[in-house]
């Protein structure tokens, strides 16, 4: 295999997995920046999005509208968990927030198992999603899912960028993330701002859930756990609480994972991919807690 083509193929893989990490990490970071809350239930909204899309699709709704429905439902569940679980403990000590978030994860995951059973189900995709493209006589191959993943991520991130720089609610969100008291004093409706943040973050998680399921071919109630941990690592190495940090971290992590896996097998490192990733997380927390972008806020766990 030509080495340039090999590099291109790996780059494509890295972008594909990196986009999913970035999509999930951005949501974690938005919520953290506003509430200093690590929302572990964020991964479970991937499950909500994927299952909703699956069932809508099985009920006869075409894939794209079903996907939009899945995103909407994730946002709805996001609003609900903020209202029911997080708003009552807002401003409480970090430990309270952390425990609430972990408890919520268990509740949502077990609810998922109760409703859908824990066994994985096939995630049906329309034929056009599975179309295989090959370039250079088959030396670079990808499916349309990759194209959709990259395209949807790019659109979502562009939308987010527009939203937080050009709309008043988006500006208010950044202001509240920077200084909640000052945001209150200029008349920003903090409750509404937090709700909007959950709508965005949860919608992104729902989209990521569908894309993740499309790549894996299956959905299951615990599907959000691994991507959540990875996105968490991505958000921290990028700079927790920063939207650009989450994006940079997501793609950096995707690239790193693909790099580890594409190392010559004689090195014997690829089985330790996740261990290496978490070692990197520890290294960042110890030596550069502000992440690649050097965010000032201290991350408390």
């Amino acid at each position, binding site marked *: 295999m030509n080495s340039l083509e090999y590099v291109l193929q790996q780059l494509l893989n890295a972008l594909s997995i990196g986009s999913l990490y970035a999509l999930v990490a951005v949501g974690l970071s938005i919520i953290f920046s506003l509430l200093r809350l690590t929302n572990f239930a964020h991964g479970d909204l991937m499950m909500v999005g994927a299952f909703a899309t699956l069932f809508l699709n099985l009920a006869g709704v075409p894939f794209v509208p079903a996907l939009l429905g899945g995103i909407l439902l994730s946002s709805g569940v996001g609003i609900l968990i903020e209202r029911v679980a997080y708003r009552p403990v807002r401003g409480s000590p970090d430990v309270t927030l952390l425990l609430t978030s972990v408890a919520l994860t268990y509740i949502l995951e077990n609810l998922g198992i109760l409703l859908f059973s824990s066994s994985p189900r096939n995630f049906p995709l329309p034929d056009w999603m599975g179309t295989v493209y090959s370039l250079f006589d088959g030396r670079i191959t990808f499916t349309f899912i990759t194209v959709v993943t990259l395209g949807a991520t790019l659109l979502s991130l562009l939308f987010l960028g527009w939203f937080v720089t050009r709309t*008043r609610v988006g*500006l*208010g969100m*950044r*202001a509240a993330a*920077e*200084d909640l*008291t*000052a*945001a*209150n*004093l*200029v*008349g*920003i*409706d*903090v*409750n509404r701002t937090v709700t909007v943040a959950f709508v965005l973050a949860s919608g992104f998680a729902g989209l990521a859930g569908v894309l993740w399921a499309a790549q894996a071919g299956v959905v299951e109630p615990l599907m959000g756990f691994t991507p959540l941990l990875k996105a968490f690592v991505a958000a921290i190495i990028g700079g927790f609480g920063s939207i650009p940090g989450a994006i940079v971290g997501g793609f950096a992590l995707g690239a790193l994972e693909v790099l580890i896996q594409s190392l010559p097998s004689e090195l014997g490192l690829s089985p330790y991919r996740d261990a290496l990733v978490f070692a990197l997380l520890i290294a960042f927390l110890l030596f550069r807690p502000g992440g690649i972008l050097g965010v000032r806020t201290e991350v408390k766990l």
Partner: protein
Amino acid sequence: MIERTLENPAKGAVLALQLENLEVNYGAVRALRGVSLEVAQGEVVALLGANGAGKSTVLKTVSGLLRPRAGGVRFFGEALGRLTPAQIVGRGLAHCPEGRRVFGSLSVLDNLRLGASQRSDAAEIRTDLDKMLTLFPILGERRGQAAGTLSGGEQQMLALSRALMSRPKLLLLDEPSLGVAPLIVREIFKTLRGLHSEGVTLLLVEQNVRLALELADRAYVLRTGQIALEGNAREMQGDERVARAYLGGGS
């Protein structure tokens, strides 16, 4: 002990702000022990006192950041007790906080825009935006710059303009001269005098007693969470009891 050097000149005028026996605790610490004061419409009232006397606490309670343990706040007759800080801004009460608290990563223009968060009159907001940029021309020059890159004085001008963007009927100002170069302090106080003559009502917390009493119509002196002294600002200028209140001695 409350000493009255003058009959309250607010009598008969429309009251913009009334604090009735306000008590505020920080945990176990009693920050305010029954503070009552009044600000009439169009008046500039200075709130003086040493560090820790409770001046900022009064402002934070009025703007809804702190909840009183007892007593109440009335704004043009309406009790503010149940309103959120954002709703209070919407009623026409702006608070320009101590330490300026501009949004450092946002541009000067975005900071000003956020000052109008409670308004929905887009055209009028744009007019006011231009007005602020002429009021402090330096802000106009730096409109696209991140607020965090401005000097202390420029940030104070921005914080003041941001508060004015809500078109307040009453403006609470906390230490506008703190950490600001003398030349800019003069400019800011000139602006405040201008606002006063336009009929904006001001409640001013200020360490610089001379400056505050020059601007104010009336003043209150707080000591350990209580009003120790109140009166006409002119007459308080020469009153040595004001200085004594600062030093914490008996009055």
